[in-house]
């Protein structure tokens, strides 16, 4: 049967067809829809949103120990969080097949960097597959489990945004059951203290040699002979751009890209006059190919930064079709939604001119004008440690001016350990947890504080205030961020306190609740002072020197009415 699927849906389908039993992830663009789609097969696959990527990889590893086919999925930077168990699993190998999905984000559509996770396959000495469309994403997920079991290795399935979020026609198949092989104690394999790890390393190096032979004969590492003047070596989505732009060229499409298939590359290079490497971001293939003595054209023509597309490829190799010039027009950056409860906290931070160490989520948008209410954003959970470090370096004076701002899901992910560090090391930091009771940025996923699991079951709701108290914080407050007055009073008070505090700004994400009737501006009362504009609400704009509220965008949160000194904003205009 044929279906139109995104790469992420196709990975989920492939896992289902392969008899996968356990799947874990922490959501992150562009990977989130993999587990959301696996949840459709929850009668066959146990699946969960794990607390973070490290935990996800560890839970899946446990299932692998039991001989169950298992999958873990994350965005590229998530694999940094999970790198510790990843490298250990590289040594330990598998019992049940283990597919580790990394969705990279060239072009940084929704990420803080564009690290190239192909490097992880090389560093962790495991096999890597790179699909170039949805159908291959399905096929290679299945094949990944087979390769994993045959060679006793985790398999890295490396996607990119344009694989994950592009759609194509997929031929779906039936599920083939692979009952768990069962658990058998084997400490020499799974308990990698040094005496066990040393012989494991030797096994890993032998495994790489066998995988290299396999890679050289792997049918999806294939040569498509065409014109022999130019030969192009490529992988992943770049293959599609190459086929589109150079339909007549000879192409070597690499699919199992680690270990690196040296023989087929040598054969290909001998058959053409000139070799070009087309790959996004790092010169990963290029470095390896140059190392075996083949002269190639690569990154001197194509950028290391950003993603590729057919136009960039054409331009790099000399085509000069004229296009409409880019227009110089106002930018349209993403914004916090109208009615977003985070806005209340950011408005107060901005008003009090506090230094705010920030974190990762929708709320990072609080950094943009007009709120400008965030100073730093490093990685998941970093806000907490960053605030404490600033305080330690600059002393009490600045500690009265610093807050850390972190989302609820992010706090569960990796904010807790930072908080314990502050209490343990006698810090006085103020941590504001923006609790909108969901993982909003990635599409409203459940998390440990929501009382629901990925599989739709009710579960224990873990209360942030209890965690804060259990970490030893004595000043824990829950506030409503729509109430600007109270929000300001409490933040003002707590930043001055010479003890650690946790302020939980609690109100559900505006995307999950029914809107209140919109507000409207009473034109006669509005003086055009623009105080309300300072909220950065997309529903409010200035027209003829007066504020106006877009009734279709307004959710009736009322923050603008609170801010207005002239009482010019009222409810119930519908």
């Amino acid at each position, binding site marked *: 049967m044929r279906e139109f699927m995104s790469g992420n849906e196709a990975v989920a389908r492939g896992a289902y067809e392969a008899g996968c039993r356990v799947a874990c992830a922490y959501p992150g663009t*562009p990977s989130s829809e993999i587990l959301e789609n696996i949840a459709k097969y929850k009668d066959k696959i146990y699946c969960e949103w794990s607390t973070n990527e490290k935990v996800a990889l560890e839970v899946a590893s446990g299932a692998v120990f039991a001989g169950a086919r298992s999958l873990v999925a994350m965005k590229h930077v998530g694999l940094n969080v999970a790198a510790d168990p990843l490298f250990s699993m590289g040594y330990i190998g598998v019992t049940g097949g283990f597919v580790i999905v990394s969705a990279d984000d060239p072009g940084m559509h929704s990420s803080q960097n564009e690290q190239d996770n192909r490097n992880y396959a090389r560093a962790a000495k495991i096999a890597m597959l790179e699909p170039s469309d949805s159908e291959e994403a399905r096929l290679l997920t299945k094949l990944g489990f087979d390769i994993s079991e045959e060679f006793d290795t985790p398999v890295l399935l490396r996607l990119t945004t344009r694989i994950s979020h592009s*759609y*194509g026609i997929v031929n779906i198949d039936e599920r083939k059951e692979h009952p768990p092989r069962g658990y058998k104690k084997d400490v020499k394999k799974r308990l990698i203290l040094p005496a066990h790890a040393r012989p494991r390393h030797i096994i890993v190096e032998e495994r790489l040699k066998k995988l290299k032979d396999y890679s050289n004969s792997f049918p999806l590492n294939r040569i498509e002979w065409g014109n022999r003047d130019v030969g192009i070596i490529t992988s992943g989505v770049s293959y599609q751009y190459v086929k589109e732009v150079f339909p007549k060229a000879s192409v070597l499409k690499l699919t199992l890209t680690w270990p690196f298939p040296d023989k087929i590359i040598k054969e290909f290079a001998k058959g053409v006059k000139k070799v070009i490497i087309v790959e996004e971001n790092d010169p990963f293939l290029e470095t390896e190919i140059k190392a075996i003595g083949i002269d190639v054209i690569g990154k001197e023509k194509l950028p290391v930064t950003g993603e590729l597309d*057919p136009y960039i490829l054409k331009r790099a190799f000399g085509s000069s079709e004229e296009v409409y010039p880019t227009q110089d027009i106002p930018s349209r950056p*993403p914004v916090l939604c109208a009615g977003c409860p985070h806005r209340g906290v950011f408005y107060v931070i901005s008003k009090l001119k506090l230094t705010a160490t920030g974190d990762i989520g929708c709320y990072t948008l609080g950094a943009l004008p007009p709120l400008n209410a965030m100073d730093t954003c490093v990685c998941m959970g970093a806000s907490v440690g960053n605030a404490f470090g600033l305080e330690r370096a600059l002393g009490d004076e600045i500690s009265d001016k610093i807050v850390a701002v972190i989302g609820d899901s992010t706090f569960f992910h990796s904010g807790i350990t930072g908080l314990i560090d502050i209490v343990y090391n006698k810090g006085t930091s103020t941590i504001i947890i923006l609790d909108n009771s969901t993982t909003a940025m990635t599409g409203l996923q459940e998390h440990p504080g929501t009382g629901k699991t990925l599989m739709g079951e009710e579960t224990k709701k873990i209360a942030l205030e209890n965690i804060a108290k259990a970490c030893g914080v004595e000043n824990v407050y829950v506030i409503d961020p729509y109430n600007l007055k109270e929000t300001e009073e409490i933040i003002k008070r707590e930043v001055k306190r010479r003890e650690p505090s946790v302020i939980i700004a609690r109100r559900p994400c505006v995307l999950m609740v029914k809107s209140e009737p919109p507000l409207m501006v009473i034109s006669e009362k509005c003086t055009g002072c623009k105080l309300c504009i300072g909220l950065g609400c997309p529903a409010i*704009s*200035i027209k003829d020197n007066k504020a106006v509220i877009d009734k279709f965008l307004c959710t009736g949160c009322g923050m603008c009415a609170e801010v207005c000194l002239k009482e010019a904003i009222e409810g119930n205009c519908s």
Partner: protein
Amino acid sequence: MTKIVICGVGGQGTILASDILSLVAMEEGYDVKKSEVHGMAQRGGSVISNCIFGKKVYSPLIGLGEGDILLAFEKLEALRSLSYLKKNGKMIVNDYEWLPITVASGDATYPENIIKTLKKKVENLICVDGIKIAADLGNIRTTNVVLLGVLARFLPFKQESWLFVLEKRVPKKTVEINKTAFLLGFASEA
């Protein structure tokens, strides 16, 4: 091969529109690919969807100067995405202004006479007040389907295929109004 770029503002329904378009192409037996971006880029920011259909489609992305048709849900976004349209390409633009936050906050000005500017550049320009058609129909959220109706006039697909996919793809309660929206767009005098 036909390459269609759909652009607009996050929340306007461009993704659903490109979904429907792709499924119709598939229904008609074409190979088809679609590409879009989720996450941070969606929150009221500029959004672009690409849909490509033909006998065999490779790239899911449309490069600059490659689009056969550009369907713009908002005027400023039409201008922003203009460079994706090929020189003799066709543009369908919704005559609608959504101020970006940079304009709303007074830091920038929304360009005047965008339609006029576009007309000077694009010979094949169709301007349609999709919101008015949808509002007259009683639900402005059908604007995206009205615009699909306009687009459908220039594509080789049967009307039954569009209506069939619409029925499958939009919420049950809104099937009838969306079908009407599509037909109104198709028949509009733009």
